[in-house]
């Protein structure tokens, strides 16, 4: 019997996280003997739409994609529906009113990640006295994770009036920008800064360098919270320079493939497949490090 053909449209390769995500999907597809049609959209929604259309033309069995942005998918999804191809969304949902346009959505909840970070800080706050001045390194302006991680975080810290965000600037999810912006913050605010909240590990790692060059001790003088839990973050934590990182797992491959198989086997899937994600404080880093895959 013929292989299942899965068309997958990836956002791009803008970060280690994304690369890990892609690899996981490719590897499991190979392992599960699924014929994967992979297409990289280079961060452009129009490219993704084109890719989806080409999947229709190629008459694939299942279409899965990680939307660049939540909005604006109705037209193409309707076309796919018309072609009777089931759709699976990964790591970000779409905001279509018509939920029949896709079978299921699996992946992380950026807002929840923001909340986790917030909760950790609120806990931590109990051990700190006086005002707690937070500087925030946002992701790329307008990008989904940036918006949601900011939202979730602010939502929680509202509860603790002592916590104030005194500076917030974009670091484009990159180390270089993260470092550059942090440098500027340190010059402008100096010793006032108590906490750094970075929307991803890379920016945090960049910022850590800036902090050290400013003659301060990361995590001693400035508590550092970040998201993703990539290897680099764990190394930083083991070196005692990063306090905590919230996991955002890119390893969707196994889940996706089993979902695809179930679909083809005619099973019905839950509307939402949540990925179990932890939060790793410094203490557990050394223990956790060996079994990190990304």
């Amino acid at each position, binding site marked *: 019997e013929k292989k299942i053909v899965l068309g997958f449209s990836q956002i791009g390769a803008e970060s280690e996280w994304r690369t890990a995500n892609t690899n996981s999907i490719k590897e499991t597809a190979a392992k599960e003997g699924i014929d*994967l049609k992979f297409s*990289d959209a280079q961060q452009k929604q129009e490219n993704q739409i084109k890719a989806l259309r*080409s999947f229709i033309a190629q008459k694939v069995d299942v279409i899965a994609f990680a939307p660049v942005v939540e*909005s604006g998918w109705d037209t193409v999804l*309707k076309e796919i529906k018309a072609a009777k191809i089931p759709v699976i969304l990964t790591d970000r949902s779409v905001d279509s*009113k018509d939920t029949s346009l896709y079978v299921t959505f699996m992946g992380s909840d950026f807002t929840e990640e923001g909340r986790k970070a917030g909760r950790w800080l609120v806990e931590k706050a109990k051990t700190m006295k006086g005002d707690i001045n937070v500087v925030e390194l946002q992701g790329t302006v307008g990008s989904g994770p940036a918006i949601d991680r900011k939202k979730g975080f602010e939502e929680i810290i509202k509860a603790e009036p002592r916590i104030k965000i005194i500076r917030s600037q974009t670091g484009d999810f990159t180390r270089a920008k993260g470092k550059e912006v942090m440098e500027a913050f340190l010059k402008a605010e100096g010793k006032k800064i108590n906490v750094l909240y970075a929307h991803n590990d890379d920016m945090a790692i960049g910022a850590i360098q800036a902090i050290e060059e400013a003659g301060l001790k990361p995590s001693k003088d400035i508590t550092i919270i970040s998201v993703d839990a990539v290897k680099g973050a764990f190394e930083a934590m083991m070196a005692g320079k990063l306090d905590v990182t919230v996991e955002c797992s890119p390893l969707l491959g196994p889940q996706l493939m089993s979902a695809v198989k179930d679909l083809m086997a005619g099973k019905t899937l839950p509307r939402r497949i949540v990925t179990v994600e932890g939060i790793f404080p410094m203490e557990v880093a050394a223990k956790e490090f060996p079994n990190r895959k990304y």
Partner: protein
Amino acid sequence: MKLNAKYLPLVATVSLFVAMATFGSVSYNGFFSAQVFLNLLIDNAFLVIVAVGMTFVILTGGIDLSVGSVVALSTMVLAELVEHQHWNLGLAIPLVLLMGTGLGAFMGWLIQRFRLQPFIVTLAGMFLARGLCYVISIDSISITDETYTALAQTRVPLWPDAAVSLSAILAVLVLLAAIFMAHATEFGRTVYAIGGSEQSAMLMGLPVARTTVLVYSLSGFCSALGGVVFTFYMLSGYGLHAIGLELDAIAAVVIGGTLLSGGVGYVVGTLFGVLALGLIQTLIMFDGSLSSWWTRIVIGALLLVFCVLQRLFEVRKK
């Protein structure tokens, strides 16, 4: 075959396009279908429109980097007006077009009046338009208005299992209008003259100043129109839409056989430039085995092959 030397780049582009299409058709199944080729037009309608505007700018020897951001801004404003302010399209769309034209005119005026460099002025315009998007909203605004979605999803069947969107048709109309403008109107010819030599054009008593401003206005208008088409394509406004579109547009124009130094080229060429770029992408998507980085490398390689062949083709014929 005796053909006028000035048509060479155009001929080169077209024949190379055909060659690539044939290659795709033989190597990937499902590639050779009317719909796949119509999709080239549907998926790139906005690019066609934007690139047409760009063609005029480049023909004068100028350049317009702001197009991508203006497209984004247009989608943003339109989405905001329709979705949040509940304007009706009849009002919102003309306003957006007006905005784009105005911005273009402003940049053109700066360039012409103060002898500023197009590259920089339009670069600033690019920052400005992009920035204004975020001022409206950093998040994307999806458009749910019924008439809008209806229009967006209308398909005009050409023949069984092959249909085009309204945008595609609009793009073709714009193209035709542009061809007429470029080759049969005083404005169009003045554009070519300026590209040939601005000083000479001036000494020949041509309306250089007016035309320069008009050209950038036109480009602004096309970008705004492209933005409108884009919203029909995406049904959303978003500050991160159409990033790097200016490069695609410029590439399309140049691949279409227009010289960046100005004065030489054809609007039709631009269409094929766009289609060629679209085709390159389609080929890669149908291949479906390329990793993210190989995708980039292959796009580059195909671009290289295309341009080099085109070049050799010209040299050979000369």
